[in-house]
């Protein structure tokens, strides 16, 4: 298991390198000059050149890249071109919102998809399966901005149960935090729930055909335990893969959902930065997201080892 961990960590190094090239490449590839943007309207060429000098934009690319990577490795993501605040600080402030939203969405997705997938797989071809499959397709087809607005319309405006927008930090009031997060989490988690349900349905119905399930039943194992204990662990491998992908999608989707519900998360920061061409902030958010996705993938790999003993020794 330790060996597996070490090997996976080593594999992350080249991926991080590629990510850093791509992120740094933003500076080169994005049209427009941040110095011009920063200098404002009616700036003199001298003023622009001066800013370029301050930002080090005239140095050779390799030198700029080296400077940037050196900073990133030490946790210094640079400073916003506009506010001058360290990017790392901005990310650290907003990270709990996005991570909280993503985690809660994942929980929502699992709470929906595990029972739904089990029901669909065990009642395959009968009406509970059809209902679950239909809802899964609907969940996948429904864009999050639409679902979010429908939820707000019903639960906030009509029923008045939950706030439509806003955010309360968890450490201030956990109950209020949950009240503000539940609709965004459902909005964001619906697609993940649908995809996971479909995956679980297919892998579980596959596993239920296996000989060792018949063995478990022949042992007198309770019907429920056959599914939860014997089938689910084996069916989980492809599902965990999908869940790993889902985390990346959740991070992407959170940009939209945070806007709908006015949550002060990374999504808002990223959008603002893109509009302002605030390159260091964009770079920071992308690096952060990339590292997060890689950590999740690492967790997925370790889960594989637990789920499938063959991988551990391989």
């Amino acid at each position, binding site marked *: 298991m330790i060996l597996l961990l070490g090997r996976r960590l080593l594999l992350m190094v080249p991926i991080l390198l590629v990510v850093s090239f791509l992120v740094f490449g933003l500076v080169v590839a994005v049209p427009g000059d941040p110095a011009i943007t920063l200098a404002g309207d009616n700036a003199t060429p001298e003023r622009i050149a001066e800013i370029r000098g301050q930002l080090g934009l005239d140095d050779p690319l390799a030198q700029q890249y080296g400077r940037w990577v050196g900073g990133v490795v030490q946790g210094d993501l640079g400073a916003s071109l506009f506010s001058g605040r360290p990017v790392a600080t901005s990310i650290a402030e907003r990270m709990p919102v996005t991570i909280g939203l993503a985690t809660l969405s994942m929980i929502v997705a699992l709470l929906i998809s595990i029972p739904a997938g089990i029901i669909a797989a065990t009642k395959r071809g009968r009406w509970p399966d059809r209902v679950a499959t239909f809802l899964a397709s609907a969940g996948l087809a429904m864009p999050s901005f639409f679902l979010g607005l429908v939820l707000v319309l019903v639960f906030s405006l009509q029923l008045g149960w939950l706030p439509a927008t806003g955010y309360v930090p968890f450490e201030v009031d956990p109950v209020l935090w949950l009240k503000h997060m539940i609709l965004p989490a459902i909005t964001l988690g619906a697609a993940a729930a649908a995809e996971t349900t479909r995956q679980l349905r297919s892998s579980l119905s596959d596993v239920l055909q*296996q*000989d*060792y399930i*018949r*063995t*478990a*039943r*022949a*042992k*007198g*194992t*309770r*019907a429920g335990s056959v599914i939860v204990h*014997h089938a689910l*662990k*084996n069916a989980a491998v492809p599902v965990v893969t999908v869940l790993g992908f889902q985390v990346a999608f959740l991070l992407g989707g959170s940009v939209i959902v945070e806007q709908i519900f006015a949550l002060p998360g990374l999504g808002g920061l990223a959008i603002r930065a893109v509009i302002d061409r605030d390159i260091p902030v964009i770079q920071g958010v992308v690096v952060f997201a990339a590292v997060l996705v890689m950590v999740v993938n690492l967790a997925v790999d370790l889960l594989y080892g637990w*789920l*499938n*003993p*063959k991988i551990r*020794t391989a």
Partner: protein
Amino acid sequence: MTAIAAPATLALDVEDLSVEFVADRRWVRVVDGVSFSVRRGETLAVVGESGSGKSVTNLAVMGLINAPQGRITSGRVLLEGTDLRALERRALEDVRGNRIAMVFQEPMTSLNPAYRVGDQIAEVVRRHRGVSRSAARARAVEALDHVGIPQASSRARAYPHEFSGGMRQRVMIAMAIACEPAVLVADEPTTALDVTIQAQALDLLRQMRDDLGMALVFITHDLAVVADIADRVMVMYGGQAVETAEVHELFAHPRHPYTEGLMRSMPQVGLRGRRLASIPGQPPRPTALPPGCRFAPRCPYALPKCDVPPPLVDVVPGHATRCVRADELVLRGPR
């Protein structure tokens, strides 16, 4: 015959069992009125080609026929006097693995790859004996040791993929005998094993039967194995029992043309180099059974009177056959 004197009561008594499956959107009978019984310490071999209904019969005995694809339409399954068909699902689960257990054909796929073998055996002990986790583990090691797995206590912590096929089948047997059942059903337990391992597995099953005084139902397509392990034999064809007899009687005086065909297609020492006899044609599909005797289309002795379904009748006490010409034919055993 066996070391333990067989008690008078039957361990397993199956009567008129019929099973149907869905095929082409209708119910098709794949097991048709099969009856058999077996005592403690005794081995009954159920013999037939694939598709003869021998496995389905025993899955039905175990209550492992799944709705909605399959159903038992008639019959009684008495396990030491308990009618298994009358039991609720949960009560049946209490019996399975406890008083009647099963070993399957494919040791490579019949163990759960995600759990240690010791835990898989301990599970059945905990389930039926309600003992502590550690006591169940200890019993699992004991069972592994009993079936001849070396270093049982450390091997109990290994996963199925760390065992060879023969060793996995031993694990399956250990799991089946962990609760000392009255009846052990072994469905082609040696078919998937190397020839050199087959004899060991047979010896092991025989030893377990004698050690625990179990009734053994041994399903196979291999008559050579039957001669080796069985006390009595039921030959199945097209979902029906076509002949039942004590094993020596069956080999000496087969009374059904299908049994004769099976015996004559056995490889024999001393007849090397000669072509093996084979039964022409294919076993009937359950969706297209012949109207009369189901073997008639392949039978070298078939007559027009074979177009009427023949009953299973005793030709001599303890020897029954489903052939209307049983009295007039002189059939031969293995060449």
